[in-house]
């Protein structure tokens, strides 16, 4: 009957039937949605998510899956764009009927999308969204495997004031939830130590000419520039600063952890010396040694959030194995009460869904386009 009436509505028939077909066959697999910027300026992070999750799913499936069911991954592309994130979330929930979600990347995408997952009662683990608001909205089913910007900002502020001994800090952000949140966290931490920023400005994502801003930073006489944002803009900004002869240290957060930072800046000579805060290198954690080897054997360097994504899938799988359920609230209760052994070591979550222990450290880029932890 249902199909018969649909046929009247000529356009929808074909795709509708396909959608039903997909939904019907999904019953004997566990579907996990991987949502992040698969296209767009920040596609490098989407790839890190996807690679990490793929490897995790392959490893878990090889070991017998989740309670005998195989994991099936569904890609969701939000291009780091809140509007598309909402659309993708709806599609993952309604059409692909996923059981849990790993994602999203940008906090500005994670927050609106999480409302939809929460409504649908799905477990969501974000490997990368660090904005405090992500877990501060009393949503029971959201978790993250990364730290928070208020922790990251403090680490950055301490470094700028104590190690670099900077007196005049220019704070720039990209107006995005993540970027501005991070910049604000750093600003707050710095002013609590008595240093007020000399410049606080927002730039627009997607633009290529920040020369006017660079001159403004120069005019402010800043001896450190802090940027809250992602590599696409960070790269261009740092290049234009250096070209204008501003050699003040450039410090940013985990939004620039990608080799594409070098491409955006136009060569390693511009990125050299840039500082950033990021979790202790997940590739150096002994628990993940084997997995890292597997990635490298496949010709992929598991940088940035690859391991975080892997760990997120592991957490979901463990919770599902233990509870024999896919209900978000049940899974969430279990995760909050238990410690999960992941490739990044044991992880435990508090009542909000934040990690109980965070481990931000300072990194610095070298002149060959690589980065290493600052000792």
């Amino acid at each position, binding site marked *: 009957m249902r199909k018969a009436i649909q046929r009247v509505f000529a356009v929808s028939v074909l795709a509708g039937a396909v959608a039903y077909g997909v939904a019907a066959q999904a019953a004997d697999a566990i579907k996990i949605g991987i949502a992040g910027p698969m296209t767009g300026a920040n596609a490098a992070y989407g790839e890190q998510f996807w690679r990490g999750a793929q490897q995790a799913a392959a490893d878990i499936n090889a070991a017998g899956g989740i309670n005998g069911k195989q994991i099936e991954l569904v890609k969701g592309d939000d291009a780091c764009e809140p509007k598309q994130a909402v659309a993708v979330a709806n599609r993952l929930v309604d059409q692909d009927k996923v059981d849990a979600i790993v994602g999203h990347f940008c906090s500005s995408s994670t927050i609106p999308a999480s409302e939809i997952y929460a409504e649908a009662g799905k477990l969501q683990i974000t490997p990368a969204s660090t904005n405090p608001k992500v877990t501060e909205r009393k949503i029971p089913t959201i978790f993250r495997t990364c730290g928070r910007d208020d922790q990251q900002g403090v680490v950055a502020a301490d470094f700028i004031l104590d190690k670099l001994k900077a007196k005049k800090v220019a704070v720039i952000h990209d107006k995005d939830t993540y970027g501005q949140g991070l910049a604000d966290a750093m600003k707050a931490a710095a002013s609590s130590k008595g240093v007020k920023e000399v410049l606080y400005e927002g730039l627009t994502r997607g633009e290529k000419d920040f*020369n006017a801003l660079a001159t403004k930073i120069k005019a402010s006489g800043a001896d450190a520039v802090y940027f809250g944002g992602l590599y696409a803009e960070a790269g261009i900004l740092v290049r234009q600063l250096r*070209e204008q002869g501003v050699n003040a240290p450039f410090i940013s957060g985990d939004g620039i952890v990608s080799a594409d930072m070098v491409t955006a800046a136009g060569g390693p000579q511009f990125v050299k010396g840039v500082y950033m805060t990021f979790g202790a290198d997940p590739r150096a954690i002994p628990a993940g040694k084997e997995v890292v080897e597997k990635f490298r054997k496949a010709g992929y360097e598991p940088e940035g959030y690859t391991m975080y994504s892997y760990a997120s899938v592991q957490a979901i799988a463990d919770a599902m194995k233990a509870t024999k359920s896919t209900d978000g609230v049940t899974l969430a209760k279990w995760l909050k009460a238990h410690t999960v052994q992941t490739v990044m070591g044991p992880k435990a979550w508090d009542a909000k869904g934040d990690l109980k222990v965070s481990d931000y450290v300072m990194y610095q880029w070298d002149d060959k386009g690589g980065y290493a932890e600052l000792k």
Partner: protein
Amino acid sequence: MDWHILGQQLVNGLTLGSIYGLIAIGYTMVYGIIGMINFAHGDVYMISAYLTAISLAVLSAFGVESVPFAIVVTLGLTMFITGVYGWSIERVAYRPLRGSTRLAPLISAIGISLLLQNYVQVAQGARNQGIPSLIDGVFRVGNDKDFVQMTHVQLLIVIASFGAMAGLTWLIQRTSLGRQCRATQQDRHMAEILGINTDRIISTVFVIGAAMAAIAGTLVTLNYGSFDFFVGFVTGIKAFTAAVLGGIGSLPGAMLGGILLGLFESLFSGFVNTDYKDVFSFSVLVLVLIFRPSGLLGRPEVEKV
């Protein structure tokens, strides 16, 4: 206010404005000759940025070491291929629509713009692309601490834009081709009766416009080193604003509009607020059009190309 900061912002604005001007020339020429807004022009500029990077990468793969040689070859190749783009777009999307409703070419131009953006996105992937920095020379005025500087690439951009504008003005005013252009623009039927192949003239104008976008694309890519498939839209709309500001249809107007817009933007973001610089530019545009609808240099009947 320090002199060197003001000076530096003027240099920033001049460079940005020259880029807008170069692209605006393409808008203004096409509008002048067939009275149509070529919405795909910004995307032709975007294509040329990709072509630049591809050509430079190919050259370096073949072991070309000399930077000036690589740039000249790249510029030539980019202008040629982009010119073919201009010609093809006119042939496929605009020529069949001549004599159709006034909105038809506008819609098909928007269609082409979508087509180009997504073609590049599908073919090249959506991530940011870039080229390594090739020219790093710089001119500085002032002492070690307070100086105004202009990089060689920036200077090249300014020279190229003024050169292009002067060259094209000469072409339009003094050559036989220019006379044919002006005749076509004044009255297409009359020009045809007088033996001018107006189809060819219109095609030529599209090719020239696209080649100007190619110069802009190459130089901008050398300057910023980073681009994506969406730059055409963002820069295109600004350049278009510049063309209107200066008086659409007028070549010096496009240049003037571009430079004014560039200066507005960098001075406004330098001394007032970075966030609202675009609001300010568009407000200026709206005000100019309300009080002087034909733009700054556009005189409705005289000297439109």
